[in-house]
């Protein structure tokens, strides 16, 4: 065991992991964080705390992570390359670790164009793979990116994200391999609807031996309505939603669409459990945290293992 991360313990013990996600509020209300995260206490092995997701200003990821940590829920502290240079990133990592955070996820970040500060400078001092490598070096070699020694280095369980469906298709597993080579301990994928393509992706990753080196958690997001299914299919860059899924959700009576979405999500989780190399799921129930326990229960993922 390299860290004190609960997620690492669960994965290392060979359990099928389940992580959740909470987006911090656009304000100072700590209670809002507690309310969302409260649904997930005891239901997931770690909860991702997003970092200014969709390039909208929100309560800082480390602060919301700390609130969640105090509730007895393990935060997966997200960090994007868009908003900070390597000095700020490293100091935040030191501070986060000092406050008890031990699991983090390294991301590029959505472009500012999508958020409410499209006029902001776009930092991107380093990219997400370089961020993984930097944290790896901080933890294992005890060295800052600049080369100087860190007194009492952090020990983070280091995560990265992967999108199996972005283009060019043939590069996707190769990029995953680069993230793992940079030092990712675990990977959480973009939400998956196209099971056929995901299976091909995992098959390739498995054949390349990547699943031996890194835990891969498959992303799932329940579709709340036909409208959401269409939005995901047509508006989200790098997302693939097969027509039959859009038809299935949109074709259900309006009042039954949410239940149909949950059913689909549960079926997908069952399928994912059977895919070689999938070490768990990452449930992103966007603004639907209160439905997460039901999904996890019905998917047979509760209770969570105590390790």
């Amino acid at each position, binding site marked *: 065991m390299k860290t004190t991360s609960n997620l690492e313990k669960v994965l290392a013990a060979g359990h099928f992991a389940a992580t959740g996600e909470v987006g911090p509020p656009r304000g100072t209300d700590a209670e809002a964080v507690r309310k969302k995260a409260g649904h997930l206490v005891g239901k997931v092995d770690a909860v991702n705390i997003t970092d200014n997701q969709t390039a909208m200003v929100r309560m800082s990821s480390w602060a919301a992570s700390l609130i969640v940590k105090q509730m007895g829920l393990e935060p997966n502290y997200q960090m994007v*390359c*868009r908003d900070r240079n*390597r000095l700020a990133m490293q100091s935040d990592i030191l501070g986060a670790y000092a406050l008890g955070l031990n699991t983090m996820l390294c991301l*590029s*970040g*959505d*472009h500012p*164009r*999508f958020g409410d500060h499209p006029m902001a400078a*776009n930092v*991107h*001092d*380093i*990219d*997400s*793979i*370089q961020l993984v*490598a*930097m944290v790896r070096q901080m933890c294992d070699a005890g060295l800052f*990116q600049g080369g100087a020694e860190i007194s009492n280095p952090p020990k983070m369980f280091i995560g990265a*994200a*992967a*999108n199996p469906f*972005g*283009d*060019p298709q*043939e*590069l996707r597993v*190769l*990029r995953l*391999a*680069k993230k793992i*080579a*940079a030092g990712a301990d675990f990977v959480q994928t*973009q939400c998956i609807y196209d099971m056929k393509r995901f299976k091909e992706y995992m098959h390739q990753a498995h054949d390349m031996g990547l699943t031996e080196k890194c835990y891969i958690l498959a992303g799932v997001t329940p579709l709340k309505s036909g409208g959401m299914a269409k939005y995901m299919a047509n508006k989200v*860059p*790098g997302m693939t939603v097969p027509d039959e899924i859009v038809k299935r959700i949109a074709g259900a009576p309006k009042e039954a669409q949410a239940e149909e979405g949950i059913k689909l999500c549960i079926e997908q989780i069952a399928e994912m459990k059977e895919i070689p190399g999938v070490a768990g799921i990452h449930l992103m129930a966007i603004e639907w945290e209160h439905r997460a326990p039901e999904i996890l229960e019905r998917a047979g993922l509760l209770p969570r293992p105590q390790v």
Partner: protein
Amino acid sequence: MITAVRKPLEEIMGFAAPYSRVLLLGCNECVTVCYAGGRKEVGILASALSMAFLKEGKKLDIVEQTLERQCDPEYVEEIAQTIDQYDAVFSMACGCGVQTVAGRYKDKPVFPMVNTMFMGASERQGVWAERCAGCGECVLGRTGGICPVARCSKRIFNGPCGGSTKGKCEIDPGVDCAWQLIWDRLKALGRTDLYSEIMPAKDWRSAKDGGPRRIVREDLLS
């Protein structure tokens, strides 16, 4: 080349308001090639300004001149004999030219007539696109001749990000995904092996983050 676009007439009118006689100074280099500030554009702007002033019942005396290069002290010297005749210089050069003129004629107000945009190339008639970010340490040899610094919206060295869709960038379907282009080119060159190498964090000192940059060539110093 350095690309530029002319400023809106209203902004230029604002610069001109206090003056009665100005030198409208074009440049024969990049801004000529991108139709922003060469001899022809000097003529067009002079006419537009004169007409706009006449409409307001005022008169602005505009003298047109175009130098070979405004970023070169040798050529900027050409206006030394006549500069006193003007209240101000309206430079149609890029920011480099404006500053060379302003640096040489310290007591003369100099105003930019164009917004300097980027280092780019012509894609087709009337379209220019950014190609080089001047980062000071060229990686084009490793990226199939496509620059991730200038052409990836997140300047990702180990791309593409998850937003690449059908060859286009997530920010705009009109923008090519640089990493799609890089990958296509590496395939065409039979050098996809280059992709697997992790490009390490860049040292931005060679770019503008190390402070304003200079090149000193000892062999050329006189």
